[in-house]
């Protein structure tokens, strides 16, 4: 009986770890030039949507006209139904292509969460000064 409780506690800890551990952080370059670029005073953030969003931790400049470019490549999972609650954007992305989403300048501060429709995939943009 006690053994079962110990197993249950251990498995619970493992479960919480699995759910909250952010696997993307490690293997993604902090900010490659391919992710954030500037063109004519507009900041472009390029992310890939397939089985989640890559990279899922992005640093970008605050208070700047920003366009989020979401690329899909044969994407049919949840990440193709993109959802940015803070700016009220919800849309289905084409399975393959690049979708541009304009982020209002006044939203380019602090953090912006990009989720999939059901909320299990996430990417976070940190707008720093």
């Amino acid at each position: 009986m006690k053994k079962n409780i110990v197993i249950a506690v251990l498995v619970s800890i493992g479960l919480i770890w699995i759910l909250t551990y952010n696997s993307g952080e490690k293997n993604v370059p902090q900010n490659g030039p391919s992710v954030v670029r500037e063109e004519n005073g507009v900041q472009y953030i390029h992310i890939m949507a397939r089985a989640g969003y890559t990279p899922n931790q992005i640093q970008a400049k605050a208070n700047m006209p920003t366009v989020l470019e979401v690329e899909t490549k044969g994407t049919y999972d949840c990440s193709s139904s993109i959802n940015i609650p803070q700016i009220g954007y919800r849309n289905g992305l084409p399975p393959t292509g690049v979708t541009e989403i304009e982020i209002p300048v006044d939203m380019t501060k602090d953090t912006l969460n990009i989720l999939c429709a059901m909320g299990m995939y996430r990417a976070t943009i940190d707008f720093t000064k």
Partner: protein
Amino acid sequence: MKKYTLHVLGTHCSACKMMIEETLIESKKVSGAEVNLKKETVVIEGSFGSPKELIDKLNPLLAPHKYRLTLEKEVKENDYTSLMTALPIGLSVLALFFLLQKSGLINFGFEGGLTPWTALLIGLIASVSTCLAVVGGLILSLSAEISQDVSNFRPFTFFHSGRLIGFMVLGGILGALGSAIEINYTATSVLGLIAALVMIILGINLIDTFGFAKKFQLALPKSIFVKVIKIEKGFFAPFLIGAGTFFLPCGFTQSMQIAALASGKWLEGGMIMTMFALGTLPMLVLISFSSYKFAHSKYASVFFKSAGIIVFGLGFFAFLTGLAGLGIIKPLFNI
């Protein structure tokens, strides 16, 4: 003629009540029998020398249906034991499920475009993905819940055919309407929250089959679902619930619906959705069939509690991600 009040174990559904009453009345010595579901007692009217004689005569009749009459109320001492066995099992299944999501083993892209065959493959993948969190969890809880009351697999057959036919017809409609309509993501998210809540309540009910939950009147699944499902003779309710899974939030289902819309042809839309539903079928049949088998085995008690833990965990997860998706709370997870 005398009236006897006895305790009977395992009465938790209206079908059980009828089954016990009908079985008892078959005995020539019994002239009347009435089961009280709440008290788990039965009042038997008949001519017996003593309550002891009554028990000896009637218990063999009830034995094939797994019920037993007793003079004293029996304490379900194995309730705690089975919960302790179910806890590591349920939690391990949850951990393995989320580990599979994190492993990247089921992350595929389909760059070749969408053909009926890729739709089938996407369905297969979807059935072991986070889609399973809502659709699979709901099927597990409903199957476990219904399995307590039915003695054949028919409602499940209706459910699965309802899902297939529903996807075919609704996919066809999406294709025919084409870009004339838009998928309402907020509505799907709200529906997802409701599904998650139902799972949480069903989960609690399954964990504590007839104790705590009953006291607090967590009777939603019994009163709504089982009554609607009309148990063994029901056809429409399981069929409609099966077809209704079309609207349950699942990222894969949504992208298939978008593809069906984009096709602009009813034949193509119906084809995509049917193939997708066919792809999810093996896993979903496995879930409902094994629930049914376990529910009618000697491991029933451990199974119900394990299923309850799994359903509760998935419901809780879906509820939190659903709230995050609507922007109500900050996102907590990243699978």
